[in-house]
């Protein structure tokens, strides 16, 4: 800031106007304004301008911004229904393991069936003549193995088809839940829209009423001004006429 204030220094006057000048400068300007009508009038005019500026108001708009995350838990997660463990489709590794277990079980059942008619002899043969007993056992088990293989294949096919059926049922179930969820969301959305619409309509009606009253007042004011002007004119004309009549009478 300048130490010496010069008359008409706009920067100093603005600083004074907004009360942002240094104390020593403030004292200088205050003293100057007491003796300088031009600067004093300038300050008064600018102050009046500032007061007028206060009337400029922005429209009262509904804002209500809000930050939300896209990765927040979404309804889609809720839409996935929980499936009971016994209804859920097995993973591939579990199906393979189950097939192996069944194959092994079938194999052992087949082996037990082949040896079932003469358990004692077999035991004895095995124990007494193990080498001689082997060819007989192997020739029987080949046929049985072929049958067993066919049976296991059939069982696997059956298992697969039942698994597909279960998956389809589960999928159908999840679809139904999904549709129900979507319906609920749509209903909620419609309800919200109805509510918003009602609120807006009420606001609009209020605003229209306010506007109507404002317009009416403006019209009344204009009419009043017009009537006043006409009345003044009439009065003046009457006065002129009166004056003319009195002059004529004289």
């Amino acid at each position, binding site marked *: 800031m300048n130490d010496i204030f010069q008359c008409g220094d*706009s*920067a100093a*006057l*603005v*600083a004074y*106007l*907004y009360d*942002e000048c240094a104390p020593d400068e403030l004292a200088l300007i205050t003293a100057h*304004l*007491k*003796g*300088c*009508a031009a600067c*004093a*009038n300038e300050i*008064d*005019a*600018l*102050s*009046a*301008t*500032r007061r*007028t*500026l*206060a*009337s*400029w*108001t*922005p*429209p*009262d*708009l*509904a*804002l*209500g*911004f*809000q*930050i*939300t*995350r*896209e990765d927040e838990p979404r309804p889609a997660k809720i839409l996935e229904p929980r499936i009971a463990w016994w209804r859920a489709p097995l993973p591939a590794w579990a199906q393979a393991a189950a097939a192996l277990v069944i194959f092994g079980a079938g194999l052992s059942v087949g082996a037990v069936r082949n040896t079932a008619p003469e358990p004692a002899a077999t035991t004895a043969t095995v124990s007494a003549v193990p080498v001689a007993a082997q060819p007989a056992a192997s020739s029987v088990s080949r046929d049985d193995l072929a049958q067993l293989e066919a049976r296991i294949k059939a069982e696997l096919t059956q298992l697969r088809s039942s698994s597909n059926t279960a998956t389809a049922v589960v999928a159908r179930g999840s679809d139904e839940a999904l549709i129900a969820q979507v319906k609920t969301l749509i209903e909620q959305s419609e309800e919200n829209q109805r509510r*918003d619409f009602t*609120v807006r309509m009420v606001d609009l009606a209020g*605003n229209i009423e*306010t*506007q109507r*009253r*404002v317009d009416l*007042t*403006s019209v009344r*004011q204009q009419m009043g001004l017009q009537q006043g002007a006409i009345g003044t004119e009439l009065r003046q004309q009457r006065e002129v006429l009166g004056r003319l009549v009195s002059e004529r009478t004289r």
Partner: protein
Amino acid sequence: MLIRPLAPVGRLSKQNGTGSRGMTRTDEELVARAQGGDIESFNQLIVRWERPIYALAYRVIGKEEDARDVCQDAFLRAYRALPGFKGQAKFSSWLYRIALNLCRDWIRRQRRAPVSQLPEDMDAIELASEKGPVESIEDLVARRELSAIVEEAMSELSEEQRTAIILKEYHGMTFQEIADMQGCPLSTVKTRLYQGLSLLRRRLEQQGQVMPQLVKRV
């Protein structure tokens, strides 16, 4: 991440709980929490600053809807840039600067004088809702007319003068803050304010709106 506009204000005010039974947190506290990932804290900052930022944008660019877009964009940018905000300046100053830059971009895009026409809805409705039933209709009409006259007079200033006056008159910034915001020396801010006010004064006097009380100080 997204910013959701137009939530009903009533609902927003319900969401505006501080979580500490009426204890109001400072901007700095809310910024720190938001930087730590608390979105609600940032939303509280939005509630606190959306009106002033919208008012700034509206007065600078003069269009209701565009001002709202600028306001929304300002908060979105602020949120994205929040990790980089180190608190060198006040949060509000930082936010104002973002908003002003967006206003400048908008004005450049428009390539025409801003605030050249009155917005369609700038009328007694808003003024009535703002003031409430205390104000009479006559006052309302007078204020509406005066507001329109001021807005029109402001539109005739240069962008720099108008911005300086808006920041000073309606946002109470210091000369230094305006200089920082506009990236110019302090003296330039004073010149812009003086010239802008003088132009406004002449324009408003022509309209019969400014009648200074001529006080003889001699």
